């Protein structure tokens, strides 16, 4: 690491003094010292802020979780409700993420390539979930699919229960994580252009073949990045799920809801353990994001 420090110093010396006349030398040195002091102040402020707001609190929950040893942590992980909450969360993610991926790619294609009336409205609808509070998302779903909602009677007649059961949780999760795939795919699609697609079409490829063999390989990193963001959001969704699930222990309680439940029942080890499991999943996502950005950057650089 000392090499990078020396590099920085060399750079800041570079355009400066060596060839200058002697009288300005002192003034220049003073200016350089002042610049270095400013840089150090900025660094201290930025890192101090990050430490207080982010790093120290995150480190603290790991300490709090393991402060009484591993046995209570193991008990918390193997508790039946914790297990159920974990697998329910995985189940919801496994349904909502593929749905949003398929439709996200479709929406990106339509918004970037399509020419039709109402395209502006479609774009607005895709982005809307980012502007709505998760609580409001949950409430609006209840107003449509709940017992007193628009489709409540019809759904009951058909024997479907959406709200206060798993389909409602999937629905809420899909809404809040809706925009990611489309938003990440559109810029990649724009950059890709239509040349190779047109070439494939001219050579007799069907639209379907063109999509699978030309378009999808071209946009795959954008899609994957969107999928990672969708997964992160889906794993942790709290507000919308809190309203539509009814928070029934061992039935409709996802892992984030379980954290709240444990916390409010003064089971801090249970809450910290579940929170750490979610945090580790989040950090895994973060790692994936970083590897992907590095990969795309290398491709753009090449």
């Amino acid at each position, binding site marked *: 690491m000392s090499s990078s420090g020396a590099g920085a110093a060399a750079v800041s010396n570079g355009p400066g003094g060596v060839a200058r006349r002697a009288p300005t030398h002192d003034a220049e040195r003073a200016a350089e010292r002042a610049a270095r002091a400013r*840089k150090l102040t900025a660094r201290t402020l930025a890192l101090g*802020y990050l430490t207080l707001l982010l790093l120290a609190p995150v480190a603290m*929950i790991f300490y709090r979780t393991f402060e009484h040893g591993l046995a209570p942590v193991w008990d918390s992980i193997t508790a039946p409700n914790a297990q159920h909450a974990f697998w329910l969360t995985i189940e919801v993610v496994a349904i909502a993420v593929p749905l949003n991926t398929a439709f996200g790619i479709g929406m990106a294609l339509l918004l970037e390539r399509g020419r039709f009336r109402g395209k502006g409205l479609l774009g607005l609808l895709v982005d809307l979930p980012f502007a709505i*509070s*998760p609580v*409001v998302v949950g*409430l609006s779903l209840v107003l449509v699919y709940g017992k007193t909602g628009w489709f409540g009677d019809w759904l009951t007649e058909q024997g479907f229960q959406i709200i206060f059961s798993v389909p409602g949780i999937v629905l809420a999760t899909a809404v809040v994580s809706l925009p990611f795939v489309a938003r990440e795919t559109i810029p990649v699609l724009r950059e890709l252009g239509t040349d190779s697609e047109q070439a494939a079409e001219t050579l007799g490829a069907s639209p379907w073949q063109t999509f699978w063999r030309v378009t999808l390989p071209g946009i795959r990193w954008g899609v994957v990045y969107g999928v990672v963001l969708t997964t992160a959001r889906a794993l*942790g969704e709290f507000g919308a799920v809190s309203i539509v699930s009814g928070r029934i222990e061992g039935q409709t309680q996802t892992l984030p809801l379980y954290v709240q439940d444990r916390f409010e029942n003064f089971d801090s080890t249970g809450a910290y353990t579940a929170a750490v499991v979610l945090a580790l999943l989040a950090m895994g996502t973060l790692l994936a994001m970083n590897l992907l950005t590095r990969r795309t950057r290398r491709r753009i650089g090449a």
Partner: protein
Amino acid sequence: MAAGSRAGGAAGRLRLPAHAGSALGVGMLGIYLSVLVLLPVAALVAKSSTGGTDAFWRAITNPEAVAAIKLTLIATGIVVLINAVFGTLIAWVLVRDDFRGKQVVNSVIDLPFALPTIVAGVVLLALYGKGSPIGVNVAFTRLSVGLALLFVTLPFVVRSVQPVLLELDIAMEEAAASLGARSWTVLRRIVLPTLAPAIISGIALSFARAVGEFGSLVLITGNLPFKTEAGSVYIFGQVENDNLPGAAAVSVILLAAAIVVLGALSFASRRMSRHVQ
């Protein structure tokens, strides 16, 4: 599919299957978006006005609702300003400075995006809650609202300023400096105007996020009416109490606030970037 390969020969008919496919696609996406977004939002607006304007007005002027909306808007305003300053500072340090572990710091910035909101609340409580190891307990105070909002919105300004700063040619600043401009002048006249559109779009994203934030608030703020109860928490309480029209009315207000601010900031950012060019 069959139609597609048969049409393959005649160039003129190539368009047809693509069109048919896209019509089907538009239809399916339309249904998906209607089920997930359009119908629910329509139901929300309809519900908020079931009792007419009087009921709507009563719902949003209810003292507890007013206090909650006010707290949300004021806390969001302060948080967004702090974000603008520290977010730009962090982006500057990440782009222009060099130190051991910079890459780690850079990737950690996204952690609040990846961390579930309820975990964000637990994380903050672990250090700044009851039994805090550093003796700072902000739980159940208004400060905790700001703290939680700062945590979840941390990446927005950093991540929108960073790429612009990377593109910014350092030669211009050096030229200004060599012409005798003081560092503050360089910052104010050259760096900040260029960064302004990015800072504003970061602010807009932070604002939209903070106005609707719920998960990180529920544990740390204690949800005390008239004191630490934010707008989204108030809506949640109304839903729990089966007052759906009241909840819908306040939801519409918060949604409108988010849309108005997003629109205004996007307008400002576009104007500014035109100005700079």
